[in-house]
């Protein structure tokens, strides 16, 4: 039996005492005014997320592989998101030469593997690579995993926006579990897309989570959007200006669909990813990347 509940999924515990414990995490066991630990801890996880501009192409290479893995293996968006978080934290500390895109791919595979271990889901790097026609042997992936762990100082329990989804859905005016679930599912997809824009690194995970839920509510349940927004704006843990900014950024992702939106922050040339063309396209797109990266409103 596992006694520590998952910080990334604090409400996933099925046993009642675990849930009580999770609630304590958000509202404090006795004092409801107490700021929640998760909210106070999330800033610690952002400090190292400033990806240098010259690492953006590496980020693109790595993320396109994650997107592909997510779509073809039907990975949990929260898992893919965690892997990207590792990639960003890695790139903030270590430079990968642009002319060696295979390292970015190795990084992506290793981070997916580490994220799946943290999430206790089975993921086989071999399956992913078979489709790719590009195989790293197990030993290479193992060594890269250890390198990533060393660089990230084994701090793998990142707080991501997914940690906050359940908490914020409690502000939604309807309590119907089916509606809440569809809201969460849609918000998860939006979150995953949003991560591809480097701009998303500027916002706190909680703010991104709230913005994604608002975007999802607007699309799925427009009649309840305004009351949901009003309720969220009253949440003491959310900075209203930051939420407004994040919502604006989020809207821009949502005008485009699917993988195209996913590559918004990178380069529109990656919209139709195929295993064969992806690397060439990356290379072709490198020149226009910096402008495309900042043009997230377009």
């Amino acid at each position, binding site marked *: *039996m596992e*006694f*520590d*509940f*998952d*910080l990334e999924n*604090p409400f996933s515990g099925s*046993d*009642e*005492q*675990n849930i*009580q*414990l*999770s609630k*304590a*995490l958000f509202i*404090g*066991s*006795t004092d409801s005014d107490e700021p929640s*630990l998760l909210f106070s801890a999330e800033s*610690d996880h952002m400090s190292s997320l400033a990806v240098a501009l010259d690492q953006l192409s590496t980020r693109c290479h790595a993320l396109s592989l994650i997107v592909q893995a997510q779509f073809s293996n039907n990975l949990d968006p929260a898992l893919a998101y965690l892997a990207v978080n590792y990639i960003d934290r890695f790139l903030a500390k270590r430079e990968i030469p642009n002319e060696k895109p295979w390292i970015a791919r190795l990084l992506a595979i290793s981070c997916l*593997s*580490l994220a799946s*271990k*943290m999430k*206790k889901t089975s993921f086989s790097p071999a399956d992913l690579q078979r489709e790719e026609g590009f195989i790293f042997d*197990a030993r290479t*992936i*193992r060594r890269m*995993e*250890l390198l990533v*762990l*060393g660089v990230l*100082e*084994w*701090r*793998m*329990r990142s707080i991501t926006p997914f940690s906050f989804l359940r908490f914020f859905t409690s502000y939604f005016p309807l309590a119907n579990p089916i509606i809440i679930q569809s809201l969460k599912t849609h918000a998860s997809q939006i979150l995953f897309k949003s991560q591809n824009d480097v701009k998303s690194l500027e916002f706190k995970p909680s703010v991104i989570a709230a913005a994604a839920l608002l975007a999802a509510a607007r699309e799925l349940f427009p009649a309840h959007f305004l009351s949901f927004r009003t309720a969220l704006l009253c949440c003491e843990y959310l900075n209203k200006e930051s939420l407004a900014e994040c919502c604006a950024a989020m809207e821009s992702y949502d005008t485009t669909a699917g993988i195209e939106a996913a590559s918004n922050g990178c380069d529109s040339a990656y919209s139709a990813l195929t295993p064969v063309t992806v690397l060439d396209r990356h290379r072709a797109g490198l020149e226009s990347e910096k402008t495309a990266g900042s043009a997230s409103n377009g």
Partner: protein
Amino acid sequence: MEKYDKLEKVGEGTYGKVYKARDKVTGQLVALKKTRLEMDEEGIPPTTLREISLLQMLSQSIYVVRLLRVEHVEKNGKRLLYLVFEYLDTDLKKYIDTYKRGPNPRPLPSRVTQSFLYQLCKGVDHCHSHGVLHRDLKPQNLLVDKDKGILKVADLGLGRAFTIPLKSYTHEIVTLWYRAPEVLLGATHYSIGVDMWSVGCIFAEMARRQPLFAGDSELQQLLHIFRFLGTPNEDTWPGVSSLRDWHDYPQWKPQSMALALPMLESDGIDLLSKMLEYNPSNRISAKDAMEHPYFDSLDKSQF
């Protein structure tokens, strides 16, 4: 591990050998915990990964022993993982022993007991608010810097990741003395109360300078508890008789805690009785314990 000079083996505990060592560059003293990493084709095992990142997260509190680094070494084809912890010179068991034995046996100063208990609650609350139960709190697992008067929680969470591969090291008999009655009675669902029970036992041990319930089997442990606190029943602990290992036990009436622990003043007795509450859901939490009047005379600003 050429970065460190191994000075001496300080323990061969539950999880493997522990060395006191010195960082050759900084001169810093560290505790090295060696463990064999069972890596296969899948790389680092998920449990190990989860445990160490959990430790990393928890060791951000100064009331939890800090994990400084994780070193991975490959030597003669064997993969070893060293966890590098900050080094503290003693633990609470040895600390209590210096007051019990030695040239000048005397009680622990009540201010020390108060301060250590407060720091213990801080560390335990930190774990609990991160959703982590320690499950093996005991004086040996509480490290002490006696000059600075600091107490830190150690040996967190590594149980699952390392107990199995290092079974050969675990000749040590697991102590039952700090184990909560619901665990002894086979409850399958338990929570922060199990740690708070241990905190209560440790509190009493600091006051008495000897363990409160020193049973040598699970049954004996229960009987020690029942003899002191009275045999629980459905009135004092609803649901107790449906626990898996519940039997008909001899009936004892509760003893007076104040008489048994004359060295504790009334606030201390009250706090202890709230930690040793039978019903786990009524047992005081670490957070509430820190607000108890027992700590009113403590200068909390220093923590």
